[in-house]
């Protein structure tokens, strides 16, 4: 039942993905209500899945890489819906569907789904720590999209060869601001998430996971510090945003492997 919800939700994002690709191919992008409702439906189905799965495992459904990817997809779409119409109506907003689709396809087809039932009653702080951290990664995911768009737009402007589809992108200065704000939001959420974990004290027991989370926090902290002190340009921030999120995704896969071996 819960996987069925997820499959339908994935098809909703596939529709959004198809719409974006069609718009790129036709070189005409226009905001579509149908596309927005497809994403909204996908989000509601994701939420339903997470609720059902949460009931099943008796805790916040973040017990495996499968669930983490779905939660990550959910938080990316959540930011898309919260961030406002200006963002949503631009081509940048349209790239949320492909990203959510990608997360869910990988989760459904590549990653093993083994729900782990809670052996002990759920701990509120631990749940908060996990959930907020993954929502923070959602913000980093969108920052990565904004960064990639910045780099594409910057390259076009520098080379004096601008494809017509890029007229639909926000100006690069706005993309730089979006990238920065999303990193700030993600960093603040991750700080709260880690803070909740430390308050509990429980996350010290997961040494590898703790080290990884701290590593991600430190990575984005360095990016923000460097930017705030004007040592790096928006172009480098964009590269770092894309690079940091790629590292995050790759290490998440590695972490899952270690978890399966029982080292966590």
């Amino acid at each position, binding site marked *: 039942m819960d996987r069925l919800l997820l499959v339908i939700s994935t098809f909703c994002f596939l529709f959004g993905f198809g719409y974006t690709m069609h718009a790129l191919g036709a070189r005409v992008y226009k905001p579509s209500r149908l596309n927005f409702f497809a994403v909204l439906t996908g989000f509601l189905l994701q939420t339903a899945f997470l609720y059902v799965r949460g009931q099943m495992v008796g805790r916040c459904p973040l017990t495996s890489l499968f669930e983490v990817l779905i939660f990550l997809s959910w938080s990316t779409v959540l930011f898309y819906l919260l961030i406002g119409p200006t963002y949503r109506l631009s081509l940048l907003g349209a790239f949320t569907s492909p990203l959510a689709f990608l997360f869910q396809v990988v989760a459904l087809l590549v990653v093993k789904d083994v729900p782990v039932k809670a052996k002990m009653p759920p701990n509120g702080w631990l749940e908060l720590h996990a959930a907020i951290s993954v929502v923070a990664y959602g913000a980093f995911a969108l920052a990565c999209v904004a960064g990639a768009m910045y780099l594409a737009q910057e390259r076009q402007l520098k080379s*004096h060869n601008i494809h017509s589809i890029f007229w639909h992108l926000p100006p690069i200065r*706005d993309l730089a601001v979006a990238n920065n704000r999303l990193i700030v939001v993600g960093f603040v959420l991750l700080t709260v998430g880690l803070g909740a974990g430390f308050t509990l004290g429980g996350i010290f027991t997961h040494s590898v996971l703790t080290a990884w989370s701290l590593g991600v926090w430190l990575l984005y902290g360095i990016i923000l510090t460097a930017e705030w002190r004007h040592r790096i340009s928006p172009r480098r921030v964009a590269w770092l945003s894309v690079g940091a999120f790629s590292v995050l995704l790759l290490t998440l896969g590695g972490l899952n492997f270690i978890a399966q071996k029982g080292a966590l």
Partner: protein
Amino acid sequence: MEILCLGLSHHTATVDLREKFAVRETEVTAVASQLLAAPGVSEALVVSTCNRVEFYVAAEDAPQGFSAVNEFLATRLAEPPGEAFFRHPTPAAIRHLFRVVCGLDSMVLGETEILGQVKKAYAAATEGRTTAKHLNKLFQRAFNVAKDVRTNTNITRGSVSVGSAAVELAEMACGKLSRCHVMILGAGETAELTAGALAARGVRSIFVANRSYDRAAALAEKMKGKAIHFDEWIREIHDVDILVGSTSAPHHVLTAAELAPVMRTRPDRNLFCIDLAVPRDIEPAVNKIDGVFLYNIDELQNRAEQNMADRRQELVVCEQMIERHAMEFGEWLAGGWTQAGVHYSEVVSGGQG
């Protein structure tokens, strides 16, 4: 019922001829009313712009309708309309109007000004009650066609003049121009035109630097900007977002070596440079600096031409859309009399303005 269009445009007539047949804005309703008095003409509308003069009429019979307009023009100007006049019967007249409002028949392909002009002509006609259900339906449909074509194709996308291409690119690099500070190097005609285009888009401030301070002051006053001495401009560049070079200096007035340290002090802010001077004012190597985007006159010209080529590529799709709409309208027109009650109520409820 036949819908006919008789007129001339920049395609068929020189400006001498167009101005001879042009109808002043204050006269269009009177002219349309005079046309209505001609035998067989039941509705009339006049579109008169600098590039075209067109008479749209609804008549029971095409030859009778054309002859009525011919006679009217011959009487009005004591000269019959000659070879330069095109005569479109149904359905060519419908297709022609749809092409006109979409900007496909304009001197600058895809321009949107014509839509406003036709809307104005239609408003004058409805106010003067010279149109009824057929022309009302036709023009309302034409405005919908224009919206459809503009929304679903790239026919109006991208600027096709050097000045507007520069402004458009500046917006891509710097965002809202109302937040941007502009510096103009030079105070000649090109500088004035560019400064005017940027000022019209509401830039935050304009600095003008010129070797002759008086000329800089004169241009700055005109643009409500600030004049600065030429040997001081490099010190003021720190807060500038758009730099326009249009001096007659025989060498580069801004080099990469000079600009790089400035950009290092403002890494979070882009600088869009427009070099309109020949010989060039800005060293091409500045484009390699992080956050600096340089376009010279040739590149802007290429951009404008590329945009125009992109618009031309859209023509086929636009024509297909127009053909579909024209066929649908033709079907309505052919069946209009048998379902007159239905269509008439549609027209009335669709509004007369």
